[in-house]
Each structure stands twice: as C-alpha cells, then as structure tokens.
C-alpha cells in the first residue's frame, strides 16, 4: 500500500512544481505610490517663532523671532546610499517626489503635496532635496508666488536681537551664479544633499511627512553682518549681488550672511528636514 501512495505523492509534488511556475512566488519588492505631506515645525499653532540661533540657554547667540518664512522644495529623491557629492548624483534612488511645493515652516499644519511620491519598496537613508526657484508649472498659492517671485528659493523675515542690538531683517534667498563659487558650484548650492531619511517604504498605505525646522536655518548667521548696510524702511535686507565681486552692490559682509544662511542653515543635512512615515 505504501508504494502506490508514495508514487502518488511524488506525482503530486511534481505537479505542484510544474504548476507553481504560473502560480507561486514573485521577484520581490513592489512599485508603490504613496502620499507626501509637508509642513512646519510641530507645535501647537502657527505664528511667529522665537528661538536662540546658538541653540542654547541662556542664549549666547542671537535671539531670533521669525515672522514670516517660506521655502520652495522639490523634487525629492530618497536614496539608499549617501550621495557621492553635493554636485553629483549617485547611489540608488528608490522613491521620488517630482513636484515642487512651498512650505511655511512657521505653520505646523501638514499639507498634501500634489502628486505624492512614487518608487519602490525598500529602505532609504538619505534624501536629496532640490532647492530651485519656483517654477511656473509648480503648484503654489498666489500669495506665495508674490512673496517668492520667480528667482527665489526661500524667504525669511523677522528680527534678531543680541544685548541691546536689534536687527529687523527680511529678504529672499536666491541661489544663482552670483553666490556660486568654484568650491560650491551652483548645482551643489541648489541641493540638500543627503538629508537624513531613514524610511522603510512598504506596500501598506503610507504617507511621508516632512517637517521643516527653521530654527536651524540661522545657526551660523551673524546678524551683525547686516548692520553695515542701510536699512530699507527700517529693515535690513540683502541680495545675491552682494556676492558679485565686480558688482557695485558687492558687500562681503552681507554675502557672508547669505552664505551662512544657505550653506550652514537651509542646506543642513541634519535637523532641518525631518522625515517620518505614517502610519
């Protein structure tokens, strides 16, 4: 009785193997499309944000109150590997959000980013964030377009104080060839290369949440660099021409201010851009 049964089992096993070709298994992984939401620092309500740019207490740096802030972000590329350089792409991009969007870092409300993100299941460790001027094709409110124009990547306005010195400030962050250097070419300045983003994308319905923390934007900034200029309507400001050496507007101090604001603030890989996945 055993032999026929064994033969039957063997036959069935072979049949399963053969049929399995068309019914079992997969190549692993999946292509997915997920949501993306972005907003400002998580706090109870929107409004002016006061902080110490030395990130200490009592404050040894400037006490800054941001009244208004905007930043244009995107596209975003989530990468498995660290980017090989600020001006070069590389590694393995597994998820992308190919729309530009504007974030108000002072508003904690998360807003949907049109188009969301698409890519594959895997775990990313870094995110490349492009910092480009607002494109005509990008979705942005009229107010944001009016504020940012078509050349700026960000806008900040507020006041800073240190002891008895108060520096009201407001200005656009424009990244163009004037601020570029051989060591920091334009392509490198226009990208946050390798913001930490340890995210595991799965086939479950997920949403990437991005919060922008502006308190680190001004960590390395010395507002005294603005004091040598003439305030406009009581507010100190700057322009990328301050960095153009052959320009009449060249101003080394205000150029240094912009450079720190950008490279040691907005472009920081750690702390400024906080990613999480929900659920």
């Amino acid at each position, binding site marked *: 009785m055993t032999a026929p049964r064994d033969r039957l089992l063997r036959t069935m096993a072979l049949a399963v193997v053969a049929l399995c070709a068309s019914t079992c298994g997969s190549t692993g992984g999946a*292509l997915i499309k997920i949501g993306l939401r972005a907003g400002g620092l998580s706090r109870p309500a929107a409004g002016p944000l006061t902080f110490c740019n030395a990130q200490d207490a009592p404050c040894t740096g400037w006490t800054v109150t941001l009244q208004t802030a905007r930043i244009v972000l995107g596209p975003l590329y989530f990468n498995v590997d660290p980017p090989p*350089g600020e001006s070069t792409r590389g590694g393995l991009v597994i998820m992308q959000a190919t*729309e530009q969007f504007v974030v108000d870092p002072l508003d904690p409300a998360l807003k949907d980013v049109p188009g969301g993100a698409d890519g*594959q299941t895997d775990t990313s460790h870094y995110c490349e964030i492009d910092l480009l001027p607002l494109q005509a094709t990008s979705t942005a409110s009229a107010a944001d377009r009016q504020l940012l124009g078509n050349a700026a990547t960000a806008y900040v306005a507020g006041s800073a104080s240190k002891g008895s010195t108060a520096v009201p400030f407001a200005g656009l962050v424009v990244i163009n060839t004037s601020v570029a250097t051989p060591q920091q070419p334009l*392509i490198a300045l226009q990208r946050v290369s390798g913001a930490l983003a340890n995210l595991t994308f799965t086939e479950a319905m997920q949403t990437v949440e991005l919060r922008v923390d502006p308190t680190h934007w001004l960590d390395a900034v010395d507002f005294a660099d603005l004091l040598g200029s003439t305030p406009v309507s009581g507010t100190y400001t700057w322009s990328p021409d301050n960095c153009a050496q052959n320009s009449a507007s060249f101003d080394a101090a205000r150029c240094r201010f912009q450079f720190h604001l950008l490279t040691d603030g907005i472009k920081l890989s750690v702390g400024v851009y906080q990613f999480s996945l929900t659920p």
Partner: protein
Amino acid sequence: MTNLRVFTMGAAAVSLSFAALAQEVVPPQPIETPAATAPTGATTGAIVGLLVTVGPDGAVQDASVDVSGGAAFDAAALDAVRRWKFRPALRNGVPFAARVRIPFRFVPEGTAPIPGGLAGTAAAPATAPGPGSPDAGAPTPSAVAGGADAGAPAGPAAGVAGADGGMPAERPTPTAAGQAGDIGEVSVRGRQRKVERGGSDFQIDVGQLAIIPRKNAEDLLNLAPGIFIANEGGEGHAGQVFLRGFNAGTGEAIEFTVNGVPINEVDNPDAHGYADTHFIIPELIRDLQVIEGPFDPHQGDFAIAGSARYELGVRDRGMRAEASFGSYGTRRLLGLWAPKGQREGTFGAFEYQTTDGFGISRAASHATGMAQYEGELGPRGLYRILAGMYATHYRSAGVLRKDQVDSGQLDFYGTEDASQGGDAQRYMASFDLESPVGDGVVTAQTFLIYRSLRIDENFTGFLLDVQRRGQTLHDQRGDAVQKDYWAITAGTRGGYRVHFNWFGRDQAVELGLYGRYDHTVPTLQRVRFGTQTPYLIDQMLQTDIVNVAGYLDAEIKPLPFLTLRGGVRQDVWYYNVVDLCATNGNYQTGQPLNVNCPPYDASGQPQEPTRRQTATGDLFAPKVTALVALPYDLTFSASYGLGGQSLDARYISQEQKAPVVPLRAAEAGLLYRHPFGSVDLSGRVVGYYTHVDQELLPDPNQGRYSAAPGTTRVGVVGAIRATGRFFDEAASITTVNPRFDDTHSLVPYAPLVVGRSDTALFGPLPGNLRLLDHRLIGEAGLGISYIGKRALPFSQFSDPTLQMDASAYLRAGPVRAGVRVTNLTNNQFPLSQFFYASDFHSRPFATLAPAAHFTAAPPRIVLFTIELDLEREN
C-alpha cells in the same frame, strides 16, 4: 515467443541505385511504408538489403535480395516492401521506372530506438552514408519500416529525399540513355544524421510548417518548445531569446550555427555572444536542430541554455521568384535558384526587404545573398562551399515609459528617442566536407566571417549623464549609447566518427576538434540625445580571442535496450585584450575640458591610455544521455550536461584565470513515436533542471546584459507532432519555475509558461478544381503562441498574451499566390517589459526612481505574396 521490432536503415537511403541518366533526376519517394514483421521465433537481428524497382506509377514492380540477412528475414523484408507505395522517380519531370536499394534492419525488441520526430520534427530517418555502408550508426526510427520519410509523406521533400541531414543526390550515369520505362542506376549519398541527444533534442524538419507566417530565421526557433522571442532593438537587431525560462539574451546563452558556421559574436558590445540570424533567408532553411541543454559534446562556447543549428537546403528544385507587399509599406523580393539535378545543398538566393515600419522610427531594409554548392568528393564523400553576404539598415523605437503612454504623452507605437537604430553587415564563406574513411566518417570544415555593426539605443534618456566630481560643468547630453563593432572570425572544425561492433551491436566513437579565432574591435560611446554625435567613450577595446576545443563523443549500446551517448569536451580560451581607453573616466579637477582617454590615471599620475591584458580560461564539460527502450514504442531518456560561456573581454584581468560561466543541466522524460496508418505521431514529456552560477540580466544603464546571482530552474516540457498526407501539426507547452539561489525569488522577464501550436493543411482542393489547366493546390497555416505571464521586477507580472498568425495560399501550376497575416486579431500588447529608472523628461523634474517600460509588439501585418516557379514540376 520472440518479439522483434523492425527497423529499416531508414531514409531509404543508404544507397539508392536506379536507372537514370538524365541530368535532372528525382529518386522515388516512399509514400506508404507498412512495417515489416520479423520472423516468428527470431531472437537475433539481421540486415537485409533489397533492390526494388519502382514503376512509373509508383508501385513496386520487382524486388530482390541484394544483401541477405537469412531466408526468413529476406522473406519478411520482401513481403513488406511489396506493399510499399512510392512517388515515382522523375527524370526531367517525367516518371520512369527506377531501382532503389533499401536496407531493412531487424532489431530485437528492447533495443533503444529514437523516436526521431516529436514536436518540430517531421521525420527521423536514418543516416545515408553511401553505398556499401548501409548503417552509419544512428538507430533508425521505430517500426516505421523503411521509415525514411514517415514523417513527411505528403511533403515536397518526403521520402528518400528527406533522409538524413543531407539531401541524397543522384549521380547520373552518362550511358544509361533515359526514357521513361528504362531502368537506370544512380548512387545516392548523404550526410551523417545528427545524433539525437534525448528528450531535449528537437530535430525540426521545417517541411510544410514553413507555410505558417514567419518573419525571419529567428522566428523558426519558435518551432522548438519553450522558446519565446522578443525584439526591442528593431528589425535589424538580434532578438531576445527566452528558452525554458532562461533569458538567453540576444543569443549569448545559445550557440547558433548555420551549416556549422558560428553565428555568435565574440565581444560584441551589445552582448558577448550576440547572435543575429537575420542574414539567413528563411526559405533556405531545410531543418533546424535545437538542443535545449548542454548535452552534446559538439556544443561549445555559448551553449549554456542550448544550441540552435540551422541547416540549409532547398528541396523544391527549380527557379523561383517571389514578391510580397503589404502593411506599412512592406515589400519583399526573393529570387531563389536551386538547379535541378543538383543536390539539395546547391542553391543561390537573393532577398531584399524594406518596410516603413509600424509606428514611429521602425523603418528597415535589408538585402541578403546566399549561395552554396554541394558536390561529390571521391566515391562516397560530399563537400559544400557556402558564401553569404548581408547588409541592413534599420530604425528602432526602443523602449517607452508606460506612464507616458498611459497619460497620452506618447503613442503606444511611438518612441522616446527617434535617433535609435543601427546597421550591420556580414560576409561569410565556408568549406566543409564529409567522407567515409575506413570504418568511419571524416568531417572537416573551415570558415571565415567578417562582421560589422552599429547599434544606437537609448534606454534611460537623461539619467546617467550627470555631473561628476572633477568633470567640467555640463548640461545633460543624454544617455544614448552607440555600439560599434567589427570582427574577423576564422575557424575550423573536424572529426572522425568510427563504427565498430561490440557486444554484437554497432557502436560508434568520435574524436573531434574545434578552433576559432576572433579579432574584434568593440566600442561603446555615449551620443548626444537625438543625434549620432559621440561625446564620451565608455569602452574601446581591441581583442584577439582564441578558442580551441577537443571532444570525445561516443555512442555505446552495452545492452540491447540501452544506448549511451555523450562524452567530454575540453575548451580552452586565450584572451589578448588591448584597452585603448584604459584611463576612461579619470577626470581631473582643474582640467579645462573633460578628456575621454586622458594620459593620466585617477590620481593624476601620467600613464598611457592604452593597456594590454592577457589571460586564459578553460572548461571541462561532461555531457551524457541515456536512452532506454520500453514497450509500446516508448523510450526513456535521461541526460546530464555542463555548458559554459567564455568571459567577455571587458572583464579580463591580467594573468587571472578567466572564469567561465558554467551551467549544469539534467533532465529525464519519455519519448514516443508510432505510425498510425499514414499518420506519424510522436510526442514527449520531459522534466528538466538547470543551475547556472551566474545569470545575465538586462542592464539598461549600460544598454547590455550584466551579471546577476546564480539561478535554478525546474520545469516540464510536453510536445507532440502529427504528420499526415494533408496536414502537419506541432504543439508544445513548457512550464518553468526559475529562482534566484540567494533570495529564492523568481528570475524576472522569462515567461513561466510558453505554448505553441503550428498547424499546416495542404493538398489538392476538393472537386478537382482547376485553373488554367492546372489543378488547384491549397495550403493554409495557423500558428498560435501563448506566452504566459512573465515575472517582472518588483513583484510585477505581465499579462499573458495569445497571438495568432495565419496564412493561405493557392497554387496553380507554376503560380502560387497567398496572404500572410501576423497578429491576426490585432492585439495591442507589450512584447517586453522592463522596470528600471529612466528620465525622458516626462515630468518637470528628473525621474530617478524605477518605473515600468515596454516595447510594443507589432500590430496586425498583412502581406500578399505571389510566387512564380519558373521550372516547377507537376
């Protein structure tokens, strides 16, 4: 009670002698071949040679014993042959009485027969070594006594002419003045039949299945079970071949030959082993042997998944002109000359085809000329001189992003980059001979090939040309790659197969050699998008590769029911690679311009941009097949073999032993063949297992195939073929379960189930319909391909596809007209699908994450054909 099974020597053919003398003689061809019955009580085998006179009406007029096998066996053979019916011999188209020498071999039951046909094979006749050497060794088909032609009774080349791999030819005797009714005598000689290698060996006599629409020689591979061919490169680009779940790429895992001349191209920048068969005129293909595994010691480099051997010959003798025209501006002209009175291997042919192509960037044209002369060498030998030339120019649509097609940005038959395409040329010459010497047969061949090609492809758009550290700032110029290649190949092969008697049975051993030298110049360059302007060199090599091999192939029958075939093969490769741009990519900060092949290394130290590297590699490969004869016309077959592929020159490192990518395969199955009246039925069921240490998968970033981890496949093949007087049917189904060894996930891209049915109907139309005093002959063909779902990256599966191709022809005397339709139902479906990152500027910003891509399968294409046979016999 002794049961004997009866075999003829097959093919009638060992020798034919009949009266004749005209310059254009067609020997008689058996139509009905009832089996002989062995004498009651006989316990041994015997060979009986008969001289048979076939009358002008095809009936046997007279039969006598030429070589006696004993009175009882002689009587049995005579009794059988008197019931045979023939298509009469023809001299200048006129029937005449002819005397034929037909050997009968009586073999005790249990001796392993090889059911020759099976899916794709029409007949498995015996060898035809020539007069006086009635048994060249290979077992003949089962009880189809005289089964020389059992598989193709109604085919144009049935019967004697259909014997063995070579066409028996007539040697007219100049003195035998010929009139119908005279008895002349003609000696017929032929080539050794290919030794069959068990359940995975498909010896395909194209025969009437040629009716079914096929675009080119590549498409004929579909007659072998488990093969699926895609083409994302354009009309002049080699197709992508999938075999039993094995992605054989553009041929790099299958050894291709035509009349023994290798087709695979060493160090081709598209793929090492690239095999472009478009230079073969389909009408010249007489038969095709596909071995789906490395089970034959004759198989060499690239025979990982198997081998495909095209044999050229023209059975319908005469002069023929054909014109076709149809959809998308397609036009085809064919001129074919196969002089009567000459052997099947003598022919000349010219083909020109042009098309505007379906959709954008798919226009193509090619011209081919092939000529061969097959002559006689000494008293029993044959030789062939083959020459061929081919040139093509084609456009290619390449791959399309699915999201762009879905959103309406691109048409399904559109293109991402209209500058893709290529051109190619091939010139070849070959001389080979085959002649009995002593107790064996000597074969020898030498060949010379010149090949050049250019392929422009763009798989990734603007993904790869990014700013690199130290590189001068630049905009993205595009990822299009231009692959240039030219090569000169010279080689030789030869062997001696000797027969001897051992254990009272015929045994055979063959020793052979193979040598091939390739001088190649492969170049890979990046070109600006939409142009043919190179801006960067990816690779520029000059290689000299030598492959020398020796093999031993034996056929041993230790027991009456057991046949062992196989042996060992030792391949050795010598690599001499000159990298003409060994410093490629060494950008140096501060350089005013990027330098393609700079005279410094990555650290900035000076060095010459060229570097020579030499290496060797070898592979020792055992290959064996066991065949066990079972009752009821069944044969059990089991095979094991190891195959391999040489290393692409770009991976060669100085003094390192160049690794060979090996594949191990095993299989077992049952084969069956039996004639039912005029219908010859064969079938097989085979289970198989393969393991390869390294898989080749498409790498879109490089525009070529790259190495991936090892894989294992198991699967089952079922195939059947039935041939009758008015029909020919071949059907097969193959399943496979391909897995990566490390993750056990499915290997992508290959279809998991492949089904194929080829049906041909032919014969005079009922009612004796006539046109212009000629009886109307009808032909109809239907090919059905079922491609099951394909595992794709990211757990995706393609949808199964079912495609039907059909044709119908009418012949009235010398005129034949018809229509061929491919993709009859006009299904719109992707032929190939890929998942990878690309950036074709489909969105406002770069797309860097993986996405779906595909190449479009051709829509319905209708071609009308008219053919004029200028010398056709009735």
